């Protein structure tokens, strides 16, 4: 034990070690605070929905009060959906800054609504966010390099290496103690602020422990790289240069290169084609016999068929039917679009097995539920909710039941996964 204490005292005497540890702690702390702030801002925005929504819905209710028309009610009322952040979201903001986490939908065609975005400043999003994932993936390796590049070469340059090598087992115990202490220092600098953040956001122990284990694993990877380079018996400065070059390749060059390759080999161009095709399908209804639309609608939704015939004048049930038929007309493209996105994501995840930088980023955003998978899950939630909304309004429309303003309270409420 005294040997460990001795090594620790020796380590703390080095100015570079002290400064590096302090700096990393400050960076991690700042990143955790930034992440928590952003998440609490998003939670605040979600919490503000009901008040704003009540006001908006009251105006629609006033309009519906006279006509008691379910079509008017369905056409004018927006219903909010939201994607509540997972407890670990603060540690890896992922796509939450560029994808909407709140979206209001109407019972009209969903394909014209679901791809809408949120207001964000693209110039601020471009460099990426300063969160725990960034500190871990990009900065932590540099601190590992700073503390490990001269582990043995420093002793050689100081002329002590031969003496140390003549210790029992070639001084293996000494190197082990030194490496372990340095590793523990960096790991604590990262984990300390993270644990405080995880406690503050009430993250589950298993998830937080997984992040800490991931942190340890990633640090070990870089330590192994450092030790492998040091076996080449170069000078400290050559070690540092080589390690920084490896960092550059793993953290910046290969991921950007892979992005180009993936986006090229898996083209995803259906997005705007869905929008164009859905609009065409929806608007065509005005130019074809209404019965044709209703036939197509009833074919897929027999539960609404044969209740009440379509009157000769405008009726909202025809209007909503052609919106739904429009959505269904592009179902294949929607599926292809989604599969394209998932194939891109899967390709990146395959790559993650070979690139630890990408792997750690991917696993962190998965644990934080801020990745593409989470985005698609939110879209699924919206789709499910929209389906319930349609069924709710159709219950009035297709049965010709009057819609009173109080009926809005019976409308299905969105529930988030969280």
């Amino acid at each position: 034990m005294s040997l460990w204490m001795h090594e620790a005292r020796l380590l703390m005497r080095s100015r570079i070690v002290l400064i590096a540890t302090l700096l990393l702690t400050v960076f991690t702390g700042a990143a955790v605070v930034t992440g928590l702030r952003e998440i609490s801002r998003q939670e605040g925005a979600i919490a503000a929905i009901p008040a704003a929504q009540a006001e908006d819905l009251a105006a629609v209710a006033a309009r519906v009060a006279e006509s008691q028309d379910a079509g008017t009610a369905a056409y004018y009322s927006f219903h909010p959906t939201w994607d509540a952040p997972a407890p670990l979201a603060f540690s890896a903001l992922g796509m939450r800054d560029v994808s909407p986490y709140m979206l209001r939908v109407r019972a009209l065609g969903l394909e014209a609504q679901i791809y809408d975005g949120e207001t964000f400043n693209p110039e601020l999003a471009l460099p990426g966010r300063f969160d725990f994932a960034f500190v871990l993936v990009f900065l932590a390796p540099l601190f590992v390099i700073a503390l490990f590049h001269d582990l043995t070469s420093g002793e050689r340059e100081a002329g002590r290496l031969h003496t140390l090598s003549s210790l029992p087992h070639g001084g293996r115990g000494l190197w082990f103690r030194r490496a372990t202490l340095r590793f523990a220092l960096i790991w604590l600098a990262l984990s300390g602020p993270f644990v405080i953040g995880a406690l503050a956001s009430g993250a589950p122990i298993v998830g937080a422990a997984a992040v800490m284990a991931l942190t340890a694993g990633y640090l070990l990877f870089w330590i192994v790289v450092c030790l492998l380079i040091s076996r080449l018996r170069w000078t400290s400065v050559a070690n540092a240069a080589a390690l920084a070059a490896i960092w550059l390749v793993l953290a910046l060059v290969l991921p950007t290169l892979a992005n180009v390759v993936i986006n090229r080999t898996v083209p995803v161009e259906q997005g705007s084609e869905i929008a164009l095709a859905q609009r065409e399908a929806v608007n065509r209804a005005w130019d074809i016999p209404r019965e044709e639309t209703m036939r197509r609608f009833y074919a897929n939704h027999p539960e609404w068929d044969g209740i009440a015939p379509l009157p000769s004048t405008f009726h909202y049930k025809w209007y909503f039917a052609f919106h739904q038929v429009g959505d269904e007309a592009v179902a294949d493209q929607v599926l292809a679009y989604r599969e394209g996105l998932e194939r891109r994501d899967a390709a990146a995840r395959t790559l993650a097995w070979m690139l630890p930088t990408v792997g750690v980023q991917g696993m962190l955003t998965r644990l934080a539920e801020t990745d593409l998978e989470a985005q698609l899950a939110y879209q699924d939630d919206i789709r499910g909710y929209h389906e319930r909304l349609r069924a709710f309004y159709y219950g009035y429309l297709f049965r010709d039941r009057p819609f009173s303003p109080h009926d809005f309270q019976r409308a299905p409420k969105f529930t988030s996964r969280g």
Partner: protein
Amino acid sequence: MSPLLLIASDELRLMVRNRVALIAFALLVLLTLAAVASAWSHQQHAADLRARHQSAAEHAFDAQPDRHPHRVVHYGHFIYRPLSPLAAFDPGIDAFTGSSLFLEGHRQNTANFGDVRQSSLLIRFGQLTPAFVLQTVAPLLLIFLGYGVLARETERGTLRLLLLQGVHRSHVVGGKLLALGAVTLLAGLPAMAGFALIAGQPGASALPMVVTALAYGAYLALWAVLIVFVSARVSHSRSALLGLVGFWVVTAVLLPRIAPDVANAVVPLESRLQTDIAIGRDLRRMGDSHNANDPHFTAFRQSVLDRYRVDRIEDLPVNFKGLQAIEGERLTSDLFDRYAAEADAAQGRQNQIVRTASLFSPPIALRSLSMAAAGTDLAAHQRFLSQAEAYRFDLVQRLNQLQAHGVSYADDSASDPGADRRKRIAADNWRQVPEFDYRPATASELALGALPGLLVILGWLGLSGLLLIMATRRLGDR
């Protein structure tokens, strides 16, 4: 040969002999070429795709059958943001904003289908473009090649020998700088080849390209000077390497991420949901065209009746419903413009904060400058959005005019079986609607947008030049 050239060629010979340096240099050249090729083909592909979508959307609009004009207001129009030729060098925020915008009556939609939501998580690691390679990767390579130019000589005591032999300090430093400068020039050349490719494109203008080339040249020169300066000031090459890599990490990786987060915290943006609800609230206060007793629209109706000197809207020579639609659209569009201006101003304030941070980070300054000159920054996107909104307003009002003058009030209010046919106007009206024609910023506007960043970089270059001169005077004193 003068001592200056002798020292420079000696340093270059040493770099060539250093196998790691040579491999790193070769990798940078390959990376740049890959970036040039991929950004170029991506730009061509995206521009082509958008042009194809645009022509499909225009064709679909023109091919509409006879319709009621208000149907066409809701049918709407799709427009696609064209990609500037310089986006092949620096695509800027292109991937982070949607490129497709749906224009319709009474609503302002978001630009959708941006690459950032359609790509894997890799996109957040950065994008492989010539701009990225030169801004971020090239300085690090120069550090690897140059950290030791003087520190190594100091460390080994060879610097003192040189000075004792009567070599002038400025020749030593100048020679080293010359060698590193030559390498810098070589490293920048492949990216410039991409530039030549772009220059041949239609729509590429010389002035912003010259400013961009100048700025990148000054930026890389700045790094070369800074590296030689640090190498001259420290006595160990390892301190030079750690110090320079540290400076690179802070200015090229850390600050570019911290500054936006500060900007986001200082100037919060209103969410789309809140904005939509606020617009709805304002609209209800201003006037509700669907409410028969609404004061604004009652007054409006009276003013129309007065203007035409009739008592009943049925007696008007024009379709009152069309006039009402025109007035309604005017009200909503005013609100859209006001809220869009507020949001733009808030984002502008955010960017101002980042611009202030660029005083401390040449990479941020260069990034802003490069995007501004390429027409791929936020200002360019806002320019597109505001032109799109102007076009949307014009399109909708044109259709409302058609309703006011092409459909009679009696037909418009009728609901008999034949009414639908009578409400429609001829299909050739749609073909008369002018197409959206995006007017990109002029060459001088682009260059002007790049000016602040250029000044920051030149300021840094001047400052580090001064520092290097001062360091030269004290070279070898210790």
